[in-house]
C-alpha cells in the first residue's frame, strides 16, 4: 500500500534579547553554573516577574515576517508541572490567547511552491538544566538558562515529506536570523524542533494516530527523525500493528526513535492566566514601529541579488538562505567586479570549510573584503586558481590579508618567460620518453609535461605561458 506522511512542527527559538524575559539577568550562553540568575529567575518566595518588552517586539517581528495576525490583546498563562529545572514549578507561557496566529510560509520543493500554515507563535520562558553526576546518585541544577525568552512556533500538519520539512525549517530559520529574532545556534540549543508525525493510506481523509518526537537540534536530525519515524509507523501498520499516541525520543546515533515513558504523557498542566502579569496589549502605533523595524526578508533579498549582482537563481537561493552568509556575500560582492566568482567561492570552499569545522556562518573567520581581494588577485592573474585555494586556507586559519599572504609566501604567478623557459628546458631533458611520445603524435604527453612544469614551479607559473612556451620548445626539437 502507498502511504502518505503528515507532519507538523513545533519549533522553539531562543530570542536574541540581551536580558531574560522577566528579570534583568543576561541571556548569554554558557557561564559558570548559576551565575546568570537572580531571585526572580530562580523562583524565590515573594518575587514578581516584569515582562521584558523587547520579547514582545521580537515575537511580533517573527509573527509579521511569517504572515501572522498579531493579537492586539493577548495574555500569559502558567503551565504547572514539577521538575527540578523549573524553579517556580510552573512555566510562564501563553495558552489560549497567543501573541501571533494564522500565518504561513511558502516553500519550494522540486520546483513546486507550497504554503505551510503557521497555527500560532507564542512567548514563553526557558527552563534550567540538570547536570547528572557520573555516579548516577546526585544531580545538580544550573538555572542560567531559566527565564531565557523563547518563542514557540506551531505549524499546521501541512508537510508531507522530510524534504518539505527541511525546506520549511530552513526558511523559518533564515527568517528568524534575518529579523534578528534569534541567533538560531542549533548546537547551543537556541533553536530546536519537535516533530508531530502520522501516516495514512494515500487517499484516506482522516489523519492517522500521531507521535511526537521531542527536542531535535540539527537539521540533519530532523530529516532523519522524520524519515525514520515514517518508516517505523509504516512498518507497524504493514504488520497490522497499532500506532500509539506518545512522545518519542530520537537517537540520532542509532538512527531510531524510542518511546518515552508514559509518565510524561499523563501531565495535566492546569493552565490558568498568570495573575502576576497584566495582559499584553499591542496597539497600532507599536505594531507600526515593530513593522518598520523588519529588514528585507530572504525572498526579497534573493530576487534582489539576482537582479543586482547577476547571480543565478540557484546561487541566490542558497546564499540568501542564511542571513550571515548573504550579508557576507553582499559585503564581498559590493567591492568586487566578479560577483559570480564570489558566489562560487561561498558555495564551494566557504561552505565546505564551515561544514568541516562545524562553525556557524556568523562565526566566519575571514572578512568579506578579503574574499573579494582574493577573487581580484585571480582575475588580475596575480595568482592561479590553484594557488588561490592555498591562499584561502591560510586566510581561514590566520585571518590575514590575501595580498600579504601572496607577497610573503611568494605565491605570485610567474609570468617571466625566461624563468618559465628554463624550467621547460629542464623538464624536456629529464623526460625524453614523453618528448618522443609527443613527437609521435600522442598529445596526452603534452599534458604530462605541463603537469611536471607546474610541479616544478609549485603551481605558480602562468599556465597560458607554460602551454605556449612548451609548444615552442617542443616544436624546436
Amino acid at each position: 500500500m502507498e502511504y502518505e506522511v503528515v507532519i507538523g512542527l513545533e519549533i522553539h527559538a531562543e530570542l536574541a534579547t540581551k536580558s531574560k524575559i522577566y528579570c534583568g539577568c543576561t541571556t548569554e550562553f554558557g557561564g559558570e553554573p548559576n551565575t546568570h540568575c537572580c531571585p526572580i529567575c530562580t523562583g524565590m518566595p515573594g518575587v514578581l516577574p516584569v515582562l521584558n518588552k523587547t520579547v514582545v517586539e521580537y515575537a511580533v517581528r517573527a509573527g509579521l515576517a511569517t504572515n501572522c495576525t498579531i493579537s492586539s490583546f493577548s495574555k500569559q498563562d502558567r503551565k504547572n508541572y514539577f521538575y527540578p529545572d523549573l524553579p517556580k514549578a510552573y512555566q510562564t507561557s501563553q495558552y489560549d490567547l497567543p501573541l501571533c496566529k494564522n500565518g504561513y510560509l511558502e516553500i519550494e520543493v522540486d520546483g513546486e511552491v507550497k504554503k505551510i500554515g503557521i497555527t500560532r507563535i507564542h512567548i514563553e520562558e526557558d527552563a534550567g538544566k540538570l547536570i547528572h553526576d557520573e555516579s548516577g546518585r546526585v544531580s545538580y541544577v544550573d538555572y542560567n538558562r531559566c527565564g531565557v525568552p523563547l518563542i514557540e512556533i506551531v505549524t499546521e500538519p501541512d508537510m508531507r515529506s522530510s524534504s518539505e520539512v527541511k525546506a520549511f525549517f530552513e526558511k523559518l530559520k533564515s527568517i528568524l536570523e534575518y529579523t534578528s529574532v534569534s541567533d538560531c545556534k542549533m548546537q547551543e540549543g537556541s533553536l530546536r524542533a519537535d516533530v508531530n508525525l502520522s501516516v495514512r493510506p494515500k487517499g484516506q481523509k482522516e489523519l492517522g494516530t500521531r507521535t511526537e518526537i521531542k527536542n531535535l537540534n540539527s537539521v540533519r536530525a530532523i530529516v532523519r527523525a522524520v524519515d525514520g519515524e515514517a518508516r517505523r509507523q509504516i512498518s507497524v501498520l504493514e504488520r497490522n500493528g497499532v500506532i500509539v499516541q506518545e512522545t518519542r525520543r530520537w537517537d540520532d546515533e542509532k538512527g531510531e526513535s524510542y518511546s518515552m515513558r508514559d509518565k510524561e504523557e499523563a501531565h495535566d498542566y492546569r493552565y490558568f492566566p498568570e495573575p502576576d502579569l497584566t495582559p499584553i496589549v499591542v496597539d497600532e502605533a507599536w505594531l507600526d514601529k515593530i513593522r518598520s523595524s523588519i529588514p528585507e526578508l530572504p525572498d526579497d533579498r534573493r530576487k534582489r541579488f539576482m537582479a543586482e549582482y547577476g547571480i543565478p537563481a540557484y546561487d541566490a537561493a542558497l546564499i540568501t538562505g542564511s542571513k550571515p552568509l548573504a550579508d557576507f556575500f553582499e559585503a564581498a560582492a559590493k567591492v568586487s567586479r566578479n560577483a559570480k566568482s564570489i558566489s562560487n567561492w561561498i558555495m564551494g570552499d566557504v561552505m565546505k570549510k564551515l561544514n568541516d569545522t562545524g562553525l556557524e556562518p556568523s562565526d566566519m573567520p575571514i572578512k568579506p573584503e578579503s574574499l573579494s581581494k582574493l577573487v581580484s588577485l585571480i582575475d588580475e592573474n596575480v595568482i592561479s586558481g590553484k594557488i588561490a585555494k592555498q591562499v584561502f586556507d591560510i586566510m581561514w586559519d590566520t585571518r590575514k590579508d590575501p595580498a600579504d599572504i601572496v607577497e610573503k609566501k611568494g605565491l605570485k604567478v610567474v609570468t617571466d618567460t625566461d624563468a618559465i623557459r628554463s624550467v621547460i628546458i629542464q623538464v624536456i631533458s629529464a623526460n625524453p620518453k614523453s618528448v618522443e611520445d609527443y613527437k609521435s603524435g600522442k598529445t596526452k604527453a603534452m599534458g604530462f609535461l605541463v603537469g611536471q612544469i607546474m610541479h616544478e614551479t609549485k603551481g605558480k607559473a602562468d599556465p597560458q605561458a607554460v602551454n605556449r612556451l612548451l609548444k615552442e620548445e617542443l616544436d624546436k626539437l
Partner: protein
Amino acid sequence: MEGSFLELTKLTALMAAEKIRKREISVIELTNAYLARIDELNGAIGAYITVCAEQALRQAESVQKKLDGRENILPLAGIPAGIKDNICTRDVKTTCASKMLDNFFPPYDAAVIEKLSESNVVILGKLNMDEFAMGSSNENSWYMPVKNPWDHERVPGGSSGGAAAAVASHMSCFALGSDTGGSIRQPASFCGVVGLKPTYGAVSRFGLIAFASSLDQIGPITRDVADCALVMNVIAGHDPLDSTSVDIEYPDYTTFLKNDVKGLKIGLPKEYFGSGLHEEVKAKILDAAKAYESYGAIIEEISLPFTEYAIPAYYIISSAEASSNLARYDGIKYGYRAKEYSDIIDLYKKTRSEGFGTEVKRRIMLGTYALSSGYYDAYYKKALKVRRLIFEDFQKAYQKVDVILGPTSPVTAFKIGEKTANPLEMYLSDVYTVSVNIAGLCAISLPCGFDSKGLPVGMQLIGKPFDEGTLIRAAYTYESNTGKSGVTNCGI
C-alpha cells in the same frame, strides 16, 4: 521604669513621632520600651515568631543619629513596627508561619520594607500568622496559635492575627499585614484596632510571599485612623517591579483626616445584614450608621445581589492560585527538605507532606482540583465569571453611594478550637470581607464598640478603587466623634 515604658508603648505613631521630633524621647528609648513589652507579653500572646531585638536597637541608634540635629524629620521616623512573617526581610528569617520556610532567610527586602527603612521606621520583628496566610483564626501557624489580647481563650482572627494582636497589646506601634480575603480587616476587628486593605495595585506586592496573587495586598494595622493614613503615605505607590501595581498619583492620605462626612452617601447592603450575622454585631453596625447620619451623612440601603457567591468564588480562585504559587516549595532550592527519599517524586511527596500543614494542603488540593482539565470550566472559569459579576455589583452600587458600610465579621472573636473541626464554617466567617478582594476594592475595619462579652466589634467601610481617602475621612469622623479606637487599651 516599667511604668514609663508602658506609657511609651501606649502612644500612637503620630504621638510618639511628635515626641521624637521634640526630642522628648529617643528612638532608642521607644524601641527599648517595645522590646520590654514584647519580653513581657509575647510568651502569653505569641504575636511574634521572630523578635529582632539586636537589629532593632542597632537600627534605632542609627535612626537617632540621623535625626540628631536635623529639622526635616519624616513623619514615621523612629517608630517601631512589626511585620507579618510573609513579607520578606533581608537576612531576617521569613517563615510564613510554616515548617516549609522555617530556615528561609531572604536575600532581599520586600518593596514595603525598603520604604519603611527609608522612612526610618524601626523593625521589631516578624509577626505570627496563619500558615501562608491561609486561615481566619491564626490557629494554622506551625509555631503557635496567637491569643486574642482581650481574651486569651479566644482567637485574634487571621491570617494577620499576630499583627493585630501585637498592635492591640502594644507590642508594636503599628504593623504591616496582608489581606487576601479579609486577613487584615477580620483580625483588626477581633482585636479592636484599625486595619486597611488598600485597593489592589496600590501597594507593591514585591517581596510579599504569594498566597493568591490576584487578591493579595499589603496594608497597615494601626491603633487609630491617623496612624493608618501615615503608614499609607509610606507604603502606597507605584512599583515598576510589580506589574500589577498601578501607576497613578497617590494622595497625601493625611489630608483626609477630617471630621466631616456631610453629604457623604453611605450604602448599607441588605445582603450584609441577613442571617448569620450575630445580633450584637448587627446592632453595633446599625448604631454606627445612625451615628453617621447624625454627622450629616446620608444612609441608603443598597443591594449587592451576588454576595452569596463571593465565598465559593473566593475559595476557588484563591486556592487555584495558591496551588500554583506554593508549588515552588519542593525541597530543591530552599526551605524544608524531607530527610529521606528514594527518588525525585518521593522527595517532592515527602517534602510537601511533611512541610505543609493541614489547611495549606487542603487548599492546594482544592485549587489543583479546580484547575484540572475537565473541571476548569465548571469551577475556575465559573468563579472568574462570578468575580466579574461581583465587581459589577459594586460598580452599580457606587453609582448611588460613595462608600459602603457593613460588619467586618459576622461574629466577634471566637474561642480557640471552636471552628477548627469545621473548615467550611471557618470559611464562612469571611463572608463580608472576600468580596472586596474579589472586586479589587479598598476597605477599612475600625472598632465600633464591644459586645456583651466585652469583645471588640469591628465595622467595615468599603470604598471605590483608589478611594482610600474617603474611607480615611469617614473612619476618622466616626473615631473622632466616638473616641472608639485602638488607643483604648485592651486591659493588659
